[in-house]
């Protein structure tokens, strides 16, 4: 059995794991314990547990929860309805297309849409409300993030709903379950894996995407991702940046445990 296929193919892959998965994580941990002069210190961790950073982490976490919640709230019904349509894969394709437009372009579009003279303000002013800056607010940040994540949430939920055997739903109804009970006791538990993958591809990026905060939220919202970018590329304090990154990775690992799924199946 063992020798059926040569072990040769594994060597480049193992090298890749060593250099680009294990080494980078080790380097991040190592750098998190260095100060600006490269001396060993735990100062960065002390700083991370100061009120400023703790508050930033909590805020970032809070935003990510809100974004994930709204994304799920919009996506689940959408996926559900789409699986009921006649040409469901065609409709799914129309969901996928926007997800393939460069993220930056979509974000850029909102700079115009939410702008002082943009269409939203034009509509609002019809009702006699004065134009106001929607950009650089919490609302614009959450809206754009939800917008970006919707397709990524719909796709896994659609797939799990699609795999759901419809006779189970019929059986539940025949046995007298109300539509709500059928949903709560049959459909939801059987599609929870899709929901979990959807949450996984939304929650972690919501903590770490920094271009949306930079372009849409100005400096109003600082997420963990923004803070890391700031420390690495602006302040040039790699030690502190790495420390924040360590905590981001820890949060990621914890959320992976919660949304734990088997090692097969794609990202989306």
């Amino acid at each position, binding site marked *: 059995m*063992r020798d*059926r*296929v040569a*072990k*040769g*193919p*594994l*060597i480049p*892959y193992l090298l*890749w*794991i060593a250099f*680009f998965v294990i*080494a*980078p994580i080790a*380097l*991040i941990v190592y750098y998190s314990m260095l100060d600006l002069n490269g001396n060993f210190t735990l100062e960065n961790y002390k700083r991370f547990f100061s009120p400023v950073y703790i508050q930033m982490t909590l805020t970032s976490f809070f935003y990510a929860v809100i974004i994930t919640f709204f994304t799920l709230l919009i996506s689940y019904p959408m996926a559900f*309805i789409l699986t*009921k*349509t006649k040409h469901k*894969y065609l409709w*799914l*394709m129309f969901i996928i*297309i*926007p997800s*393939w*437009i*460069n*993220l*930056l*372009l979509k974000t*850029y579009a909102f*700079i*115009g*849409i939410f*702008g002082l*003279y943009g*269409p939203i303000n034009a509509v609002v002013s019809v009702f006699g409300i004065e134009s106001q800056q929607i950009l650089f607010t919490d609302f614009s940040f959450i809206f754009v993030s939800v917008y970006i994540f*919707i*397709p990524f949430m719909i796709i896994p939920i659609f797939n799990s709903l699609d795999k759901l055997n419809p006779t189970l739903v019929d059986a539940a109804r025949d046995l007298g379950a109300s539509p709500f009970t059928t949903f709560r006791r049959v459909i939801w538990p059987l599609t929870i894996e899709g929901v979990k993958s959807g949450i996984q591809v939304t929650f*972690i990026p919501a903590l*770490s995407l*920094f*271009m949306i905060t930079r*372009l849409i939220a100005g400096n109003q919202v600082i997420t963990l*991702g923004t803070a*890391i970018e700031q420390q690495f*590329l602006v302040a040039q304090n*790699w030690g502190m*940046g790495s420390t924040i*990154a360590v905590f*981001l*990775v820890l949060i*990621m690992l914890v959320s*992976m445990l919660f949304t734990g799924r088997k*090692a*097969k*199946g*794609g*990202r*989306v």
Partner: protein
Amino acid sequence: MNRLSTPAKIYVAVVFIILYAPIFYLIFYSFNSGGSMHNFESFTLEHYQAVFEDSRLLVILINTIIIALLSSLISTILGTLGAIGIVSIKNRKMRNTLLSLNNIMIVSPDVVIGASFLILFTMIGVKLGFTSVLISHIAFSIPIVVLMVLPKLLEMNPNLIDAAQDLGATKRDVLYRVIVPYIKPGIFAGFFMALTYSLDDFAVTFFVTGNGFSTLSVEIYSIARVGISLTINALSGIIFVVTVLIVIGYYFVTRRTKLANGGLGRL
């Protein structure tokens, strides 16, 4: 759509409008002769012309495409070999460990990947630019290829390999003439995914790109930070049309393979 109730139809329509409105908004103003994303003055193609006259932008576009094609080609080869290797491991624990490491890369936030690669490249002395961006793109595409190829390998009947070997095939023959043809759909899906990941990547590239080199995402970011430029709108119009064509092509290709073997391609 007949089975759907009216509220359901309205809901779907609203979500689709929200999904597409920003994209069409961008494209609509790419034809605006005024310089902004409000006040449509008159129809013009000058911004499209500007895209093709801006040699800097064209170089960046070509760079982006070269990086995408090269990185997905190399990562497809390495990832496919990796997947074949993983399947050949019979020790369950070892196999799961590798798969977990593989998954870590997929769920890792882009910022962390970017930052850690920046440290790595600085440490081993890789100059930031084309090489560092290419290596990073290869590195983050490999796990995706592995995940796309793995299911195909697992569903493959092991007797096929035994049969080939009984009939005198060498290990090489088994690889190239039995395994690879069988997992071809997975390999193509992996290549395609790697391509889209590479084209779409911003954060990792932003960290490892240095001064002289830029990809489209990074360029759009730096332009958008300054303000609005309708050349970007024209560019997004072009990208949208190309994307739609690719997606439609991909849809028909995977539909055909799906009918044949029940897979779902990218999904």
